[in-house]
Structures are given as C-alpha cells and as structure tokens.
C-alpha cells in the first residue's frame, strides 16, 4: 500500500470513528436521562473513540504531508478536511476542560459534514504554484484553521443552548431560525448525497460557452445540468438538457450544484419531518434537556476567547507577513482578506457586546451561530463565488 493510499484509508477510519463516537455520545446522554449510572461508561467510550478517530486523522495529515512534501492545506479538499480535523481537536480540548458530553453530539456531526463536504472536491495531489511555495503556507493556514475551529466550538455550544431554551411549542422567530439552521445542515447532507451519487456513476456532460469577457470556453458538469451556461453548445450530453440558459455573469454549473443540493436537501428534510412527525430541533431537544445552561454559555464564551487571539494571529497577522513576502503588499483588499477582517470585526463586536452590554446566554448563542456562518461563508462562498487570489480550488 502506498503512502497516499494509507493516507486515504486513515481518513476513512477517522470518518467512521467520528460516526461511531456520535452515536456513543447520543447513548451517553440518553443513559444519563434514565438512570445516570452508565453515563460515565458511555461518555468515556465515546471520547476514547473520538480520540482514536482524531489520531487516525492526524495520521492521514502526516502521511499526506510526507507524500506531497508540503502541508496538506493547499486546496479545497485538503483545507476543509483539516478544518474538520481541527474542530474535532478543539472539541477534545474543550471536552477535557469542561467534561461536557453534550458538545460531542453536535461537534462531531458538524465535523463529519465538513469532512464529507471536503471529499466532494478533487482529492488528487496537485503541485504547488510558486506563490504557495513558502513555509508561511504551513504557518498561516494551520493557525487560521485552528482559530476558526476553536471559534466553531462556540457555535456548537450555542446551538445546544438554543436547542434547550427555545420553546418549540409556540411559533416564534427563534423557533423558525433554529429550524432554519437545522435545515441548512440537512442541505449540506443533500449536497454530499447528490455529489457522491453522481460521481459514483461517473456522470459527465460537456458544453462550450461564451464567458463574460466574450471568450469561448469549455465546461464539464458533474451533475445533470439544470441551468445552462451563457450561449452553451453541447459537446457531450447525458440524461438531460439544461432547462434554462443563464447570462454570462452567472456560473450556471455552480448554480446547478446549489439547486441540486437544495432539492435533495429539501426532500430529505421533508422525509425526516414526515417520519418523525416533528421538527428536527424537536428531535434533538429531549437529548439536551439535562445540560447545564450556565456551563454551555461559559463554554461558548471561553471558546471565543481562546479562538479569537489564535484567529487574529493566523488569519490576519501571519497572513499579512506572507502577503508582504509573496505579493509585495501586506494587505490588498482581496475578498478572502476582507472576509477574514469581517470575521475578526464580528467577533470583536461579539466580545464587546458580551462584556459591556451583557449579551450573555441566548443572545450570545445566536451571535456564535452567526459567527460560524461568516466563517463558513469565507470558506465556501468566497472561494467558490467571489473570485480572488485565494481561489485555488
């Protein structure tokens, strides 16, 4: 088995371990509801499996690093996978400070979704372009990802907090938005399902089109085309033809992916609702009934306070040092840079609101969720939609 195959297998083992650990965390919480006696056993087993998964993923990271010769954070697959890994790492860290089992029930599924999302991107090893050939790639990207993952834990704590406090029996804005968050998670699952299904079928349709600068280009769809590119012409088509043609400004391929994900995600969501006969938030609510709200609030705040300096260092300061070396200027208002600044400003506002205005508990939990939303926007939308210097994948 070559090193790269070993690396792939280790990642797979990690994925399975996280899956098992999620179930064990669920078991741990369920048990504590009943008698409280077995909690420790289940909880201990769950964290042990999580750590096994984490070590396995570190194994993936190191073997891939050795194989490629550079830190495996240079494209969408590698970075997003590492982000998932650091979330698990941050969870383990926070777990050992606070011993809060409920965190695992949300942190691990989030990490699982992120890793699954990552593996929808090309996983091949690609060589580095000159601007990425620097030690700062390792330093900047890993520190930034660590900061983001620690910040993500505050959203995990926030989500659990909200699942407990939001009254799901009365219609309210809170109930709506909480369910919207759950729906978004299901849509990500929808994306993973639809992408992996068609990629397993080796689906491809090819078209030529005219881009916004008037150049003729070729594009390959990996999902059946719902939207066609500007003035597209068929090169090779399977299954269906595009239903609508889009103007040059809109990337119809990406739009197709988004619509497919929404479609499958919504169907999945409806299916869950029909089977369970209640909201997804309501499915989880009984599981978190016993959590200590004060402790959750503290965890949410602590993770912001631990993550904020790490994020500043990695995503702004190290970023500026590298930008000065590679691009001759430390700051260039590139979309990725701007969104890192926005994330930073947001968490600065979060801390000021909390410390000076007393925004604790529920308000703080909502803010933590919005913050994580901004981090995900910077990861997904900025790379894939707002083209800039960072769109390596």
């Amino acid at each position, binding site marked *: 088995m070559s090193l790269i195959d070993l690396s792939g297998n280790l990642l797979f083992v990690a994925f399975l371990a996280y899956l098992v650990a999620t179930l064990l965390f669920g078991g741990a919480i369920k048990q504590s509801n009943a008698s409280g006696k077995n909690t420790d056993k289940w909880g201990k087993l769950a964290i042990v499996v999580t750590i096994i998964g984490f070590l396995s993923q570190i194994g993936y990271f190191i073997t891939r690093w050795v194989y490629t010769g550079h830190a495996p954070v240079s494209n969408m697959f590698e970075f997003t996978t590492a982000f998932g890994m650091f979330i698990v790492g941050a969870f383990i860290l926070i777990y050992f400070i606070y011993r809060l089992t409920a965190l695992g029930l949300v942190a691990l599924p989030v990490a699982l979704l992120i890793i699954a999302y990552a593996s929808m991107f090309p996983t091949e090893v690609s060589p580095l372009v000159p601007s990425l050939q620097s030690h700062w790639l390792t330093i900047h990207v890993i520190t930034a990802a660590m900061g983001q993952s620690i910040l993500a834990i505050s959203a995990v704590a926030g989500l659990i907090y909200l699942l407990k406090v939001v009254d799901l029996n009365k219609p309210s804005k809170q109930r709506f938005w909480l369910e919207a968050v759950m729906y978004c998670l299901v849509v990500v699952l929808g994306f993973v399902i639809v992408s992996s299904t068609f990629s397993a079928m080796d689906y491809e349709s090819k078209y030529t089109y005219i881009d916004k600068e008037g150049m003729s280009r070729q594009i390959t769809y990996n999902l059946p085309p719902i939207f066609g590119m500007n003035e597209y012409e068929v090169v090779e088509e399977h299954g269906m033809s595009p239903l609508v043609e889009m103007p040059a400004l809109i990337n119809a391929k990406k739009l197709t992916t988004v619509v497919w994900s929404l479609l499958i995600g919504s169907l999945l969501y409806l299916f869950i609702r029909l089977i369970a006969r209640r909201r997804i938030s309501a499915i989880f609510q009984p599981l978190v009934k016993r959590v200590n709200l004060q402790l959750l609030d*503290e965890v949410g705040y602590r993770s912001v306070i631990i993550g904020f300096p790490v994020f500043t260092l990695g995503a702004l300061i190290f970023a500026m040092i590298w930008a000065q070396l590679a691009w001759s200027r430390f700051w260039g208002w590139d979309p990725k840079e701007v969104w890192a600044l926005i994330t930073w400003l947001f968490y600065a506002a979060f801390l000021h609101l909390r410390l000076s205005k007393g925004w604790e508990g529920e308000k703080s939990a909502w803010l933590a969720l919005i913050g994580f939303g901004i981090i995900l926007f910077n990861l997904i939308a900025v790379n894939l939609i707002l083209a800039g210097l960072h769109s390596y994948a």
Partner: protein
Amino acid sequence: MENIICACGHSNPFGTKLCEKCGRPLTEEEKQNKVVDMRYDGTAIRSKTYNKSIVDKIWNFFSSVKVGIALIIITLIAASIGTLLPQEFYVKASDMEKGAYYEDVYGFVGKIYYTLGLSDLYSSWWFQILVGMLAVSIIVASLDRGIPLYKSLKNQRVKRHESFLKRQRIVAEGQITASPEETLSKVEKKMTEMKYIVRRDGSALLAEKGRFSRYGPYINHVGLIIFLTGVMLRLVPGFYVDESIWVREGETRAITGMDGYFIENRDFILETHDNAPQGEQLKQGVNVVAKNFQTDITLYKQPKDAIAGDTENLEKVRDYSIRVNHPLKEEGYALYQMDYRLNELKQMNFQLVNKSTEQSLGKVGIDLTNPKKEYDLGNGVSVKLLVYTPDFSGFENGVPQTATSVPNNPAFLFKMTTPETPKGETSFVAIKQTLEPLGENQYKMKFESVETRDMSGFTIRKDRTIPILFVGGIIFMIGVAIGSYWNHRRLWLQVEPDGHVLMAAHVNKNMFSMKKDLDAVTAFAGLPQYKDQLEPSEEGEESTNRGNTKKEGDNTL
C-alpha cells in the same frame, strides 16, 4: 462638582459608584443591586459622570461602547459590500474604460456599483472616515475607562465594608469554630500555594491573582492605534515607495524609486511541474502548473560621487535570484518578481538577396530596441533603415504608424543600395508582408531568423511603516493574549474575633476555574460554603435571579 463623602469618611470624586476605600455602594442604583457591577471596580468614569458641555457630549459619544460596536458593524457591512464585485485595482482596464468595463461585464448592477463608487470603496473618503472614527472611539473609550480602572486597582484596600462584600457574585457567610488567626493563616497559606498574592490587614485578607489581565483590553487597543497610525503614515512622502519596472534579459536599468541603484537581468527562468494534468487542473483546462518564476540578477550601485545617469563605473553590490516569496532586500527596499513576458523579439536577421538569382549579398541583423540607421555590407552594398515601427499598426497618410514602443510587430522601411542599383530601392517589410511602394525591385530583404529574449517585471517597494505595523501587531497580540488567557481573581475574607466569617470573591471571567480555587480553599481552611448569587438556585427561577438585568438598557456602558 462636589466630592462624595462615604460613611467611612473617605472623600470620593464625583461619579464614584463604590467607595474607593471601603467599597460601600454610593449611588441609589448600586444600593438597589444585589450584585454590584465590578467592571471598572465602581470608579468614576468621566463619560458617565459629565454630560453638559459640547466636549462632554463628544467625549461621551466616542467613549460609548454602543457607538463603538455600531461603528464596528457598519465597517463590517461596508467592507462586505466591497467584495460583491471585483474592486477597480483588480480590473484589467485603463482608468478611462473602467466605467464601461463594469457596465459591459456586470450590466446595470455593475453600472450602479461603479457610479456609487463602490468599485473603489476602500479608498473612498467615507470608508476612511469610518475607520478614523473607529480609531477615535478606541482611544477615547480606553482613556475613559482604562485610567480610572488602573488607579482603582492600584490603590485597593484590604479591608472592605460588609455591604461591598455582600454584593459580590460569590459570597460565603457563617461561623467557624477554629480561631480567626488560624483560619486566616490557613487561607493565606493555601492561596499563596495557588500563586495568589495575599495581603492582610488585621482581621481582613485580600488574595489577588492576575491583575494585569484587566489591562489586556487597553493594551490591545494601544496596539491597534499604533497599527492604524502606521497605516496613516504611508501617506507621508518618503515613507512608502511602490514602483514597477520591466527589465529585459541582458539589460541593465536604473531602478525606479531606488536612486543610484541599477539592476541587470542576467536570466529569466520559468519552470513548470512535469506532472500529468489531473483533477481540478484538468477541469480548468490548465495544462501546466508553474513551479518557479525566477530572475537571476546583479544589483549595482553608483559610486557616491557619480553624476546622475553615469552608468559607466557601477559598483557591483551582489548577485541574487529573485523568486516569488523570495524578494531581493536592500537598504529597506524590496524587489519582487511580479510578472514576466516570454520571447520578446530582440533581433531580426535578414539577407539581402537578388530576387532573380537568389544570391545573397550579406546579412543584416537589426537590434529591435536599438536599431542602427545604416548597415554597411561592404563593396558598395548598404541597407538604410528609413523608418522603423516597433509595433506596426497600419498606415496613416502613407506613413507607417506604431501603437507602442514594444517590438511586438516590427516593420521596416528599407533603402537597399547595391552596385547594380546605385540609386537605391525602397521596400517596406513587416511580418508576413512586403510592399514595394516605388515600383518593382531587383533586390529584397529576405527574412532569415529572429532572436528572442524574456522580460521580467519587478515591483519595487519600500515601506518604512512596516516596523510600526509590526510593533502595533505585537502589542495587540500581547494585549489580546493576556486579556484572554489570564483572568483577574480576587478573594476577600474577614474573620471577626467572635468567629463570624464573611468571604467574597470576584473574577472578571472564567468563574468555572475560580470556583475550583474556592472549593480548594474552602475545604482546606474549613470555611462556610459559598454561594453564587447569579446562579439560578432551582430550575424555573432563572428570571428572578439574573441580578444585573439592567445592563442592557444602560446608556453609555
């Protein structure tokens, strides 16, 4: 404004909330509170005390955290709008064409975006004012609170009034059986063990740890201000140089912006990865991935007494290979490998040929950047270069025109003189095109070969603000780190001779760890069990026990 005289006899400045000496609440509001607000330790904060004159009002505006947060949010939203469409400096169009570019590519939305100035948002006056206001807010708010807090923490008394202790979040009260002295000593021992600084005053004890963490926010604000000052200094002439030059292989050029320095481009190297295209690379239709952009250069310096423009006696400074991520650094300047152009035409070689016999009379090599006027081939044969257009773009009134001075599409008007044609024949030669404007010729300039060379594009930067930014960044990080990773813990203990104990504790964050310390000391010294006045005692009672619920409505917190 009059000073407030506390019951203990201490005279406090107007606006003080908790007596500086004994900690008794001085305002009605504080007296009502079950748990006092310890954020600034109850000292008089200027912005919350005075609100009469214009200066007060401006001061209060900028010192308000509410205003500060609003400024952060507005900046954040403004910054995000600037990422919707590419900013002007990333658009490859001349200044004149930019408006048209936005309209062409992004339609009506693009036109509005450009017209509103959003396409150059970050250098717009209003965005800069926004950042400036944020800076003022940071300075004012820090002075407003930081100084009183520092004074108050520095002059802390050990002994505090009962009403102060009872209004802390953590309070313990009860009787002990052990002797007061023994209890105090035990607490002192345990707290010292846990790295607290312990002070005693009669029957009172104050244990304190990590006070410096309270200054973290103020330190990081100082760092931010230094950083922003550095950014502003770039506007001062001499602090910031940003130039770019193109240097051809084999050429030595003066470096723009870096007086007295010359650069020789010895060789430009482009290396590509020899991997088989796959995955994303294949999808985007990219066949090769660049591996290295490098220019081997020699840096020269003019001697001190040299006349400007004298390139004869250059002193060699050093050889260097400028690569991406590895700029050349010299005397505060840095030269970056930013761009390249491959295979620029350097020289064109022709043969002067007799059309009918195909016999060559000699070779003419024309240096395209520095052509000669006349090429003498000997034996009465010569070629005159009447007109040379490096980038031929067509005729205007019969005269050939050039679009640029770069030899992209060279064209020549030759006058060929041979013993057979002593008057000379005129021929216009361009790439894939020959014209004989004055009738049929006997001779022609036959194209033979072309020599090319590469060009390197360098950016020259000098940024004397970098050290300032660096210092600002480091101070900011130190401030954030000490404010985030350390916390200020205090424990007050008073043991009356009759065995009555009153203990209180305060921590600015991370109550979780504080409680661990408290548990340890309580067990060790046999103190009464403490209670958390903010913690809901039982489920369902949360709302009544939230203590400081007024916080949110307060005006200029």
